[in-house]
């Protein structure tokens, strides 16, 4: 499996990563070799095997009652944001 420059740019776009020129060519090589490595899985016959959904066979995702458990910590949480104003997170203009 060999990835083209366009493939890498597409993956980087899907992953929302900006990459420099050198990073793109490096990623072409390393991602291609990782995909070639994981292609070994093709050698395993797993026909009819259920994909593993949880490491513990008898566990299911637990549900909790639909009740409010969180307290208001708005200000504390926003202390970690780079840009806030009037309690809102600021991002570049989305709608013209």
């Amino acid at each position, binding site marked *: 499996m060999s990835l083209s420059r366009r493939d890498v740019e597409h993956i980087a776009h899907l992953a929302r990563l900006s990459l420099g020129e050198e990073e793109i060519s490096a990623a072409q090589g390393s991602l291609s070799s990782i995909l070639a490595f994981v292609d070994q899985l*093709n050698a395993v016959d797993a026909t009819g095997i*259920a994909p593993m959904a949880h490491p513990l066979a008898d566990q299911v995702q637990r549900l909790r009652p639909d009740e409010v458990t969180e307290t208001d*910590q708005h200000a504390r949480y926003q202390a970690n944001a780079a840009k806030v104003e009037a309690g809102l*997170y600021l991002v570049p203009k989305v709608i013209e």
Partner: protein
Amino acid sequence: MSLHTLSVAELAAGLRRKQFSATELAQHFIARCEAHNGLLNGYITFTPERALADAAAADARLASGNAGPLTGIPLAQKDIFCTDGIRTTCGSRMLENFVSPYDATVVERLAAAGTVLLGKTNMDEFAMGSSNETSYYGLVRNPWDTARVPGGSSGGSAAVVAARLAPVATGTDTGGSIRQPAALTGISGIKPTYGRVSRYGMIAFASSLDQAGIMAPSAEDCALFLEAIAGFDPRDSTSVDVPVPAYSAELGQSVKGLRIGVVREFMEGGLDPANAALVRDALQVYASLGAEIVDVSCPNMGMSVPTYYVVAPAECSSNLSRFDGVRFGHRCADPKDLMDLYKRSRGEGFGAEVKRRIMTGTYVLSAGYYDAYYLKAQQVRQLISREFAAAFTQADVLVGPTSPTPAFKLGDKVDDPITMYLNDIYTIGANLAGLPAMSIPCGLLEGLPLGLQLIGPHFAESRLLSAAHAYQQATDWHRRLPAAYA
């Protein structure tokens, strides 16, 4: 008295008998950190003031008679665990200024037990690495040879415990990140069963594999700390509600009649004969203690690394999508629009290995490739898991090496991801199947430590710890210290 050579149980006894105070103990380790951390770089954030405040509180508890078994014991937290008021970086530029508004459950439980926080340890960025060379905060050096890696991703925790800059440290293990660095630095480390320890407040890498555990000189130390952090937590939806045994009280279990399975696939193939010989020496010790050595086979074990490098990056690409430059974490300067904000914040905030894994994961989950990669990997994961289950009908514990080689030189594997990934060839299987596993020191190869890996069935931590403890009663590898830190 060399306080740093005492076990956790000995430290607890000394505190109770007033041979030394928690404050004196904290001061001893603070002085060692100040003397040695500059070279080793095991801590990202060193917290001596917090340690002294914790120690004063511990002394008050000890004086009032309501101290627990860990009250006053210093410890280091891997910098993947959120700590209220102390920054949590996860080894990444992305979180350089992140101060969590809450404590991880592991942090909360150890604080409630009265432990003394020395600092937050260095690690591979977002726990992705096997050498601790991907940290934004600089590489960590192995105390046994400072030109070599300490292993990873919990490389800082391993180095500070190996050099006795802390008596114990927490770690996390997604593909071997507790066991491999423990092996490479000559200490003990346990990765419990998936779901045994809460992941709440532990920054997520691959959520179906991540598990927290303990790194310390001996299995006994690990048992004392594991029983403090294990147990059900409603705040982690995959936490299991299974009672936690008193691991330290159960340590005396004899290994007489214990069936120890040697996994054939671990011992064949590329394993260095000198490494294999150390594993066989350890088996001899077990045989002399009355254990029964049996041969078991897990034919698809060799597929564990390729399986992991589909599943883990897929989960990582999803988990790390939360870093958007908006709510927390690095934000680029002057974004021209929202897409630019996302892409440059992430492009600048993440290092090369993290980007590589996010892109691998994005690719294997992208339209048209899901069946060929992710679905297939989860099927092979099921096969590997079933092979382990079958092996556990013939054996009570499985053993093998922890790592293919002792610690390698800094820089040796950093340019070749596949070679780096293959460091975890013996450890990944337990993560894929959610099994508890530990590494204990089993000898030196040209002056460098190597580890013996023990793997148990789900929730058999007590059996693993007892088997490790029995070995450590019969040998002294876990007492060896690198000469410069004795």
